[in-house]
């Protein structure tokens, strides 16, 4: 992984069309400004992870797995 040190107000460029500017740094958080072509999707990583997880969850689960799951968490809470 490439690691670059930047101050507030400074930018990095990725390829021809993408600029990421460090807009503000405060309290352990960084505010980023992003300029990119319309066809480039920009997502917070956790949104992508959750989307993938939801799509996987919707593919379903067999009845056997379901019973196993219920037994596992049921016992786990002392039910």
């Amino acid at each position, binding site marked *: 992984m490439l690691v670059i040190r930047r101050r507030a107000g400074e930018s990095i460029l990725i390829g021809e069309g993408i600029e990421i500017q460090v807009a503000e740094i405060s309290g352990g958080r960084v505010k980023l400004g992003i300029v990119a072509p319309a066809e480039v999707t920009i997502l*917070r990583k*956790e*949104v992508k*992870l*959750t989307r993938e997880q*939801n*799509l996987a969850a919707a593919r379903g689960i067999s009845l056997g797995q*379901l*019973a196993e799951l219920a037994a596992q968490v049921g016992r*786990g809470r002392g039910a």
Partner: protein
Amino acid sequence: MERFESKHFGMIEFQPETVIQFPAGLPGFEQESRFVALEQPGVKPIVFLHSLSRPDLCFITLPALVVEPDFRLRVPTEDLRTLELAEDRQPQIGAEVACLAVVSVAEGQAPTANLLAPILVNLRTRRALQVIAPESGYSHQHPLPVAL
């Protein structure tokens, strides 16, 4: 009483006022805004979140507190607003909101629950949102409690 034909459960009946509304859908399912929560004998505490527009779409969820007894909410302010909850504090699970974690099973692996992004349902208004809360520190693939 309304009825809906589910691919998984056959005909399901529900009271219109129990419908859970996701104004923005869920990540990956942005068009799905109406769900019902179903429980089935023998598989408690599993809660099935069934879409009311797709007969095949049903999420298996577990109460976050079953997955992780010490689970703590870290709901961002804008999400509290979307959920029509008080914005100056975290809501109380069980009293003000239901908090469910979506369960998924990857091929050949143990099932996990998404505690990074729990589904919160305002129990008063039935408005719901999958709250993505990276500051909570929980994983999108949190292991389930191991049977004793």
